[in-house]
């Protein structure tokens, strides 16, 4: 393509013959990916709704313990764990598979081969997740954070994943020669990293558990890297693709892309250890984890600058493009949550924020405000190309965006404040008026719980808003599929019809 020519006008209107040929090629590739991508998207949507329901139940229970108190399967321990696993392995991973497959095929300019592999993998993965979630609700969960699926569910998941990794390598292998775009680096790395993480963690924690100081290290190496080396690369690959694609502008700098990618690959792997600050681990291991967390500022800032400079001058487009709106919200959240995450690894701040609601807010900031929002943006772009139908309703997209965006903002801000209060009260000290001796104020657990109550309620409120957003999305998704093709227009959905902007390419 016109790689040397970077002017906006030329990018928007490449030579007509060339552009037509490219569109025909992309169209054929998209059709070849339709069956598996569509399967993963539908599965993701189902898990999103299930995970949201679990989340609401868990959130209500925290300020109203009697809620569903008689239901054995829905104790807080079961339902919170079911929420985590169904959104992480059900929603987020299925969505990541769909987006990764679609992007990988497009960027490799290769029609999808070996659909059978993906069909089997998709089926196995979702059966595995279903067995695992039911197992958790039955009370069979392991005690290992992020690996709570009972051991009888996980081999199926691993087989599924190995098949997808294999498929990605095959597709990449058959790519058209030429420059490998930054999104592909992230996709290929993520599809290689995740099975590595998952298999080693399963073996070292579930099937032949490591003992002593090694066990928590493996646990947090895995749990944090699921975010950093699986969801983050898929999310960044999506931003790197959709941002310039929707804007019709090139990415600002190849060098910043490379700096961001390699520094992520180098530093992230160590960062999870900061969850063990204060724990029984050799000092140097903890310090190395903290240093790696701080160095994560480099990839985050490099990537953030790269995206921001690409975006500058085009913020008006946020008014009408649904994809851009979700993607930009996700990209900004990525920068924020990562910088806060680096700060949380510093010993003095960790002492305050660790083991409080602050960490919970941070996790949702990353997995929801960043990753999930980016996936929504990607789905808004992909669906018209997979189905040949347009999104039928701009108002439903607005409802989806605003309820989710405002909801997650209330969630993160409210719970972070609540977490800080909780943290301050737990490490507060008192001074003896006579002797002047400083001692740890022994906190009354119930007092602290009461002080965090308003923030737990704000979390439930945010949860209700997010649920409304998800329902709007689900209704819209089904509506899009059910509407007769004749009725489906050929005009793109535009969030702001009167905006004086070029026709949306969303």
């Amino acid at each position, binding site marked *: 393509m016109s790689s040397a020519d970077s002017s906006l006008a030329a990018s928007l209107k490449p030579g007509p013959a060339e552009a037509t040929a490219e569109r025909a090629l992309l169209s054929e590739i998209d059709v070849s990916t339709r069956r598996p991508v569509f399967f993963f998207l539908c599965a993701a949507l189902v898990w999103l709704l299930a995970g949201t329901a679990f989340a609401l139940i868990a959130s209500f229970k925290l300020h109203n313990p009697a809620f569903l108190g008689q239901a054995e399967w829905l104790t807080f321990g079961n339902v919170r764990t079911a929420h985590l696993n169904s959104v992480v392995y059900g929603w987020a991973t299925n969505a990541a598979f769909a987006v990764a497959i679609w992007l990988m095929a497009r960027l490799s300019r290769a029609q999808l081969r070996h659909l059978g592999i993906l069909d089997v993998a998709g089926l196995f993965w979702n059966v595995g997740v279903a067995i695992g979630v039911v197992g958790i609700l039955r009370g069979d969960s392991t005690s290992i954070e992020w690996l709570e699926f009972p051991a009888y569910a996980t081999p199926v998941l691993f087989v599924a994943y190995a098949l997808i990794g294999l498929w990605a390598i095959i597709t990449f292998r058959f790519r058209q020669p030429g420059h490998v775009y*930054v999104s592909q680096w992230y996709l290929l790395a993520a599809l290689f990293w995740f099975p590595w993480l998952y298999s080693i963690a399963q073996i070292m924690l579930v099937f032949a558990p490591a003992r002593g100081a090694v066990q928590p290290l493996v646990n947090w190496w895995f749990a944090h890297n699921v975010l950093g080396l699986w969801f983050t690369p898929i999310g960044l690959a999506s931003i790197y693709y959709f941002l310039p694609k929707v804007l019709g502008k090139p990415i600002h*700098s190849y060098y910043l892309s490379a700096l961001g990618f390699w520094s992520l690959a180098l530093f992230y792997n160590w960062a999870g250890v900061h969850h063990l600050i204060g724990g029984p681990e050799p000092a140097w291991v903890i310090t190395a984890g903290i240093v790696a967390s701080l160095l994560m500022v480099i990839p985050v800032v490099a990537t953030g600058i790269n995206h921001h400079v690409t975006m500058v001058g085009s913020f008006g487009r946020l008014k009408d493009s649904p994809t851009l709106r979700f993607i930009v919200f996700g990209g900004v959240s990525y920068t924020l949550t990562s910088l806060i995450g680096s700060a949380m690894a510093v010993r003095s701040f960790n002492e305050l924020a660790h083991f409080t609601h602050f960490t919970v807010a941070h996790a949702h900031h990353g997995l929801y405000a960043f990753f999930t929002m980016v996936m929504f943006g990607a789905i808004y772009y992909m669906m018209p190309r997979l189905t040949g139908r347009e999104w039928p309703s701009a108002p439903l997209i607005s409802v989806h965006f605003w309820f989710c965006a405002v909801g997650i903002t209330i969630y993160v801000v409210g719970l972070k404040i609540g977490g800080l209060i909780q943290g301050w009260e737990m490490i507060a000290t008192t001074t003896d008026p006579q002797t002047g001796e400083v001692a740890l104020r022994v906190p009354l657990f119930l007092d602290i719980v009461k002080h965090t109550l308003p923030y737990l309620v704000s979390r439930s409120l945010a949860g209700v808003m997010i649920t409304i957003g998800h329902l709007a999305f689900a209704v819209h998704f089904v509506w899009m599929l059910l509407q007769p093709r004749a009725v489906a227009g050929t005009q793109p959905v535009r969030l702001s019809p009167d905006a004086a902007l070029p026709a949306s390419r969303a």
Partner: protein
Amino acid sequence: MSDAHPDPVEPTPAHQRENPEPHEQQHFPSLLLLFLCSVLVFSSALYLQRYSGNFDPLVYNEEVQGTGVAAGSGAAAAADPVVVGKKLYVQNCVTCHQATGQGLPGTYPPLAGSDWVVGNEEAIIRILIHGLTGPVKVSGMDYGSAAMPAFGPLGSNWKDEKIAHVLTYIRQEWGNKAPPVTPETVARVRAATANRGKAWTAPELAEFHESK
């Protein structure tokens, strides 16, 4: 070799209006950014060095610094002498004295219930440091066909702590209930017998053994 998609596909309206595939420009990042990254890497390295606990696997307190902080000294948690002693016993003593502490009748004397072991510590400290040779009577039985090797400078050259730990272990295992042996006592005995160049014999130790 690919799955067949024989029909030419009509691009969807969405395809017909979409922008070309993305690419990247070659803008070099600002030198200020690279400089700041370097500063961050450099200061992180300083932090790692400062709070590494000397990269010692037994140092759990990141404030410990300086070289030569050996495992087992101050910074690391004090080890339980019985636990360490048992490990030393398993590695060095079980071949003859057996895991049960019963030895082999007629060849290797027992440690369980032995009057030498639970008696005056002066005797067994000397035996550990320099070894024992010749006939010896233990719990009423005669032994003497095998020699007890030295673990002090004549043999394995153990430090005072190791000798104290293994002795404390055998004095408190298999129903033995004698007080622990401290490294300080071992050090005192070692100093008092510094000139000795061969293993002890039972009569030489009789004064300690019978004075229990």
